């Protein structure tokens, strides 16, 4: 929601910019560090391949089932300080110290590489930071105990088993790691340090007269531990494109090269969580969240690389020929990774299929949490719904216009002076009553709780945090004092588990006065945003628990805050109620704690367009539950943009309308009857697909496969899909193409090959592998059901998803060439953790040989608890069945019913175009079959 610049002196200038030149962005480039202004980045980036003296491997051995050994720097002069790259005299002993490494293999095709300094010969007491709490606690249980090492003939190397069909190779001199397919050809998949760019600045004692300080604008970073950066190259073999490493705004799904021959050199992709005011729609610059996980994809394989490190990171994607323009590599993508601090703790995922890579990553950082069902529905937000009257009026207007919504949000103004956990009692005198009124209609409320705590002695949270010493400290050891919404603020130190527990307790009904069971939480500004800090965030030399410097942890601060808040809601509900927490900042693993959104976007067509590749890359890197503010946060969307945004946003995994408080009201009914109808229709589509979405959330929660998927995830062999940034799959069955331009007359849609497609507006069937040109319809954006799939829907619309619980289902069956199709439906109580004990229904619907069968796929090992539902199926729609079928018979019972032509949706004006089985009224929980005659 927010923009740090608003309360500083900058607004005037900003305002002038906005007024006088709408094309000029308000993004203040000079307020943020470029690579050239960042010594570790500048130095590392200018190196040529193999220009560094190499490391060699020694003392390789198997210990505890892992490969370990030393990396010995070449005896030549290699380490130079970043302040003075030419200072040969600056050589010291530390440069000669060997590093320790370990290579571990985990179940499912995962190789882990750890490289740290040798503590036994450390010149300073400072230890490099290893980020805890991100890797799944049971990861170690899944480590494979390597029985032996072997040495390939001919070269000094060690090889070991990685997964069936894959092996790891450790080359000794120079040091290099290659993951490759086994067999005679030994086709490589991933390699590390193939270009000799591995560099590791070891900690050392400060010399007399040496100056480690770094300045940026008016801020000075004391850097008490000096240079400690790490950089290396990673190559993705057999790849056409790389993806991932969010969060960046770009209209491109794949990561475009940042340097190399034939490429305009840009900044590297920066991973540094920042609150960026009016971020650009196309920039490698870092915004709110960071996931240092990159995936590659090509016709032969998909692979991934994840570096667990929360310090500032800069990543170059290198264009072919970057290393040797005379012989540009084909079928390989090289990347260059730089980080300010931390250790090497990296994971190689071998694939080979795209979904394999995602599962491998999820097995390391976790799958997304199963959300409450209401959270999958539509959210209505604005900065700010001003008071209880406003809330009541907006709520009533949704009903008046028959538009469903599930959650109403309150931004910062609901609090008493931006003291979170409090209410402005003038505006919100009866918060419980207000929430209860919404809850009576099955609706929920979300309030904002940010990490900055107002430094006000009469504010109990501040008082406690001060007394207990729970705040992050500044470099001098005092409580860090920064500026945010409430003015002078401090930030609790979420790295400390004790403080996280303390924070979690703040969400109890007792502590959070005015909260009720239908209230959930929004964490904003948790990059953290510090209005008067360097780059609008916390100084890097601030100190956390265990003497950890903020620079070492920065990108994970929001992650910890999100974690503590989500745990607070779990605690509040005695472990029985699934939390819902939306966060703006995130890190690898945030998917376990809730949803994220793409922050303060703008109400323009470009931002509509970039929302799709942004959400797709988030999904690929684990953050399935994500979305962009529908309508755009800053500025006033023209009504056609708003309508298109609702039509697209209805397919985002997280679907929320939101707006800045300087914008005009834009609730869906404010733009005339016609536009109200269009937005209602868009929201209705989401509600009708809720059973399908919820099933996909279940799939994500068990496998890590995202809800919203790039086409290549489903069609890995179809090259045309690799860089398609405009269309996406929802699950494996639905393809959606956005409309991203004003007054667009026609839309080109690429339908992937290997399947046929049914247009969900008119039931027309298309062959795959074609670029289809369709007239752009005002009513909806193009959507297609893939032949061979079954989608469960609910076609009755209620005030909120809550009232749909008992409503009957519609099954939409799209038959493929063999007149077969499959689909799934997952149902649980939508709110508790009983599903973990087996309380759910999971069905697979299979259509084959003119018979639709529902089978139970809930494993018998799922648990003791059961979940039941009396819901029935009221309608079965068959697409692609040759006409002639007249009757259907249900077994058991041999109950007979008619087949007739019916519409695809119950929208006015839909033509009867699809064979429809009328009222089979079979219970969704039961085993049954329906035979067609």
């Amino acid at each position, binding site marked *: 929601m927010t923009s740090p610049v*608003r309360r500083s002196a900058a*607004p005037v200038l*900003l*305002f002038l910019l*906005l007024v006088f030149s709408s094309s000029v962005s308000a993004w203040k480039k000079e307020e943020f560090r470029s690579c050239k202004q960042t010594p570790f980045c500048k130095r590392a980036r200018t190196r040529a391949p193999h220009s560094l003296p190499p490391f060699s491997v020694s003392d390789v051995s198997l210990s505890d089932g892992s490969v370990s050994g030393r990396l010995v720097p070449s005896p030549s002069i290699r380490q130079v300080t970043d302040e003075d790259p030419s200072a040969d005299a600056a050589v010291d002993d530390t440069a000669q110290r060997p590093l320790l490494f370990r290579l571990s293999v985990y179940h499912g095709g995962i190789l882990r590489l750890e490289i740290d300094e040798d503590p036994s010969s450390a010149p300073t007491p400072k230890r490099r930071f290893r980020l805890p709490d991100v890797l799944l606690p049971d990861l170690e249980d899944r480590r494979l105990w390597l029985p032996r090492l072997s040495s390939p003939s001919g070269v000094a190397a060690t090889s070991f088993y990685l997964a069936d069909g894959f092996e790891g190779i450790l080359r000794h001199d120079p040091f290099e790691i290659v993951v490759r397919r086994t067999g005679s050809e030994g086709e490589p998949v991933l390699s590390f340090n193939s270009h000799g760019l591995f560099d590791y600045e070891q900690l050392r004692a400060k010399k007399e007269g040496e100056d480690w300080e770094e300045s940026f604008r008016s801020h000075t970073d004391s850097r008490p531990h000096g240079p400690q950066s790490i950089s290396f190259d990673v190559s993705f073999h057999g790849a056409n494109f790389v993806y991932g490493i969010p969060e960046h705004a770009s209209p491109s799904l794949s990561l475009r090269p940042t340097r190399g021959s034939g490429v305009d050199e840009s900044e590297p992709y920066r991973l540094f969580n920042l609150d960026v005011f009016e971020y650009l729609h196309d920039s490698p610059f870092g915004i709110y969240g960071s996931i240092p996980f990159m995936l590659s994809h090509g016709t032969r394989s998909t692979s991934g690389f994840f570096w667990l490190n929360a310090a500032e990171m800069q990543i170059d994607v290198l264009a072919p020929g970057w290393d040797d323009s005379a012989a540009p590599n084909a079928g390989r993508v090289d990347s260059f990774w730089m980080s300010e601090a931390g250790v090497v703790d990296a994971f190689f995922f071998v694939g080979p299929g795209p979904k394999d890579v995602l599962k491998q990553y999820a097995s390391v950082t976790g799958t997304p949490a199963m959300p409450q069902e209401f959270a999958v529905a539509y959210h209505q937000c604005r900065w700010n719904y001003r008071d209880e009257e*406003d809330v009541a009026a907006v709520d009533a207007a949704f009903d008046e216009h*028959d538009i*469903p919504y599930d959650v109403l949000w309150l931004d910062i103004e609901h609090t008493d002076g931006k003291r979170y956990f409090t209410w402005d009692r003038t505006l919100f005198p009866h918060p419980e009553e207000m929430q209860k009124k919404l809850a*009576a*209609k*099955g609706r929920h409320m979300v309030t904002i709780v940010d990490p900055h705590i107002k430094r006000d002695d009469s504010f109990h949270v501040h008082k406690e945090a001060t007394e207990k010493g729970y705040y992050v400290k500044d470099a001098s050891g005092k409580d860090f004092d920064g500026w945010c919404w409430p003015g002078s603020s401090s930030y609790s130190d979420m790295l400390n588990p004790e403080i996280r527990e303390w924070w979690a307790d703040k969400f109890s009904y007792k502590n959070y006065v005015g909260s009720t069971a239908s209230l959930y939480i929004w964490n904003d500004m948790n990059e953290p945003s510090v209005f008067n800090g360097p780059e609008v965030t916390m100084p890097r030399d601030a100190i956390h628990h265990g003497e950890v410097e903020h620079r070492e942890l920065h990108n994970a601060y929001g992650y910890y805050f999100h974690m503590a808040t989500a745990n607070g809601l779990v605690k509040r509900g005695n472990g029985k109620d699934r939390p819902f927490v939306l966060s703006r900042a995130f890190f690898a693993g945030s998917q376990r704690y809730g949803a994220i959104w793409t922050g303060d976007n703008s109400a323009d067509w470009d931002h509509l367009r970039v929302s799709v590749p942004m959400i797709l890359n988030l999904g690929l890197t684990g953050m399935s539950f994500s979305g962009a503010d529908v309508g755009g946060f800053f500025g006033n969307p023209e009504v056609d943009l708003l309508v298109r945004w609702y039509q697209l946003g209805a397919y985002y995994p997280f679907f929320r309308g939101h707006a800045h*408080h*300087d*914008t*005009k*009201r834009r609730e869906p009914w404010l733009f005339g009857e016609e536009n109200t109808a269009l937005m209602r229709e868009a929201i*209705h589509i989401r509600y009708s697909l809720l059973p399908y979405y919820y099933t996909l959330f279940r799939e994500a929660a068990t496998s890590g496969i995202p809800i919203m998927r790039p086409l290549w995830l489903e069609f890995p062999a179809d090259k045309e899909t690799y860089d398609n940034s405009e269309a996406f799959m929802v699950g494996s069955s639905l393809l959606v193409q956005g409309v991203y331009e004003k007054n667009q007359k026609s839309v080109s849609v690429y339908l992937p090959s290997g399947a046929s497609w049914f247009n969900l507006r008119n039931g027309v069937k298309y062959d795959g592998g074609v670029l289809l040109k369709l007239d752009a319809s005002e009513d909806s954006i193009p959507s297609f059901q893939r032949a061979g799939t079954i989608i469960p829907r609910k*076609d*009755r*619309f*209620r*005030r909120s998803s809550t*009232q749909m619980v*008992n*409503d*009957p289902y519609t099954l939409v069956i799209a038959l493929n060439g063999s007149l077969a199709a499959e689909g799934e439906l997952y149902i649980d109580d939508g709110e508790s953790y009983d599903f973990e004990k087996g309380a759910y229904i999971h069905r697979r619907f299979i259509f084959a040989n003119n018979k639709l069968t529902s089978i139970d796929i809930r494993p018998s090992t799922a648990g003791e608890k*059961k979940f*039941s539902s*009396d819901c029935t199926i*009221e*309608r079965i729609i068959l697409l692609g069945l040759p006409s002639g079928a007249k009757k259907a018979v249900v077994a058991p019972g041999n109950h007979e019913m008619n087949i007739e032509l019916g*519409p695809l949706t*119950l*929208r*006015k*004006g*839909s033509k*009867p175009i699809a064979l429809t089985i*009328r*009222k089979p009224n079979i219970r969704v929980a039961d085993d049954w079959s329906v035979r067609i005659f």
Partner: protein
Amino acid sequence: MGALRIKFSVTITCLFALWIAGFASLPAREFLGIAPQDEGYYKSDVIKCKDGAKKFTKQQLNDEFCDCLDGTDEPGTSACPEGKFYCRNSGHIPQIIFSSRVNDGLCDCCDGSDEYNGNVNCSNTCWEAGKAARERLKKKIEKHQDGLVIRKQEVEKAKQEFVKEEVELSKLKNEEKILKGLVEKLREHKERIKKAEEEERLKKEKEEAQRVAETKSNEQKQLLDEYPEDLPERPHDKLEKTSQYVKDDHGDSIAYDHGSDHKSHEVPSDHSTNQHVLEDKDITTVKAGANEETGTKEVHPDDAADQVQSPETTEGLSREKLGRLVASRWTGELSDKQTKEHNDKNEEEKENHDFAESGEEENYDSYYHSDTDDDRHQYDDEDDDNDFQDDADEPYGKDEVEYDDSSYTDKDFTSESPDTTTGSLSWLDKIQHTVQNVIQAFNFFRTPIDISESSRVNKEYDDASLKLSKLQSRISSLSEKLKHDFGKEKEFYSFYDQCFEYKQNKYVYKVCPFRKASQVEGHSTTQLGRWANFEESYSVMQFSNGEKCWNGPDRSLKVRLRCGLKYELADVDEPSRCEYVAILSTPISCREEKLKELQQKLEDLNKSQPLAHDEL
């Protein structure tokens, strides 16, 4: 599981039985959700979808499967998203709800007929709700009736005033013509004198000493220098002749504020409000006097004949008024009677009526009502009377400098020429006569030229010019006023002279129709907008192009007009940044059509009433 299901169906059966019992008068299942007048449509065995798309059989009616996309076949279920469900609501008004509300677990119809699947048990609240609704409706109807009476008078008055001012304008234009002629004549004459004098001077130059000639010319120069001093002096003289309070306001607030857009210094602080209002009040009275016979009488007691006849004498009342006004400085109370004399009776009647009928509930009811009705922010009859006065009697000239000046002149002008019809002629005659005399008296053939004669001509010329410029300024202010759109019946004519105020927390909102709207906080004033126009068939006053908002639009204000017995501004709100809305109650917005609609509604309500009551 099995047991559970049995229990469940038993519950359903029980509830269904209950439901049947409770709503014995309701239609059979297949007629669920169908309005009585529509039942005929569903009589046949094969029924058409209303959109004509297809047909369905009687078995398909309300069978929980949507056959007609327009919902024709499922009026009583939630199967068709486009469907509508009719609840009979005996004892209350029948209601048509979205089919999405049927069996959704929430009681929507007061008779509970939308929830029949047994998941919830909705009690029948129609009788209580109907009773309350009827009460509210009755009150609303009364308000509309009373409001219409006031409105009628206001419209009548406005029409007359409008005609009067039109007449005045055309008359003034005539006078302007004549006066222009006179001024021209005087000017010519003056020039001739000057010329003659010049000639004489030249002639005398030869005869007299140079010093004498110089002295003479100095004297003339001195004369000329006196002109400007005349200008500011005159208004004061005349104001004093008219009335002290006019001078106070216009002198202090207007004339000297010329050109200043933000008169923050004169924004009343809480402390000074009363006094300020009092002053305003007087002005408006006078102002009203200028428009109404009563006021005119007060200011110019001698003048009578020409005016539209006055039904009441105001001399006495205006003393009372004065007394109340002064009293209210301490009490803070003002009465309706102080202005708009002829409304007083009606107002009082109405108020008595209201009190008799509703007493204290009125207030509560009107708020309760506000949730559902589009007349959302009803005027609160019980509110302090003086609000009306405060609002209505804002010194219209306070903010609008141009206008103030003209009205200033207006008073000045009128006071000097008391009778606007017959009187003005004599006034003009007098001038004409004087001019004639002056001109004739002047003997060009007498040498040397009589200096006193010459200065008399100059003086007459100055007087006439000043008069002319005042006249012209009055003409321009009148034309400015009359070109506005005052509504189909000129019903908003009186708004021209009024401002309305509303205090909300630290802000005072001020709305001056046809001019501007502002938000005052302490000593700073923010312009919310300048008058744009009426919108939505005179139910909205739009003020736009106010002060620019930081990072937002220019401020604007939409004032929604509601029927109310008094003039009252309320509920200023800012739903979007810098886009304000407010409600203004006024009898002007009480409409016959709306009254009829309300009466019809009440009639409908009453129709279903006894039956339902019996049942219960």
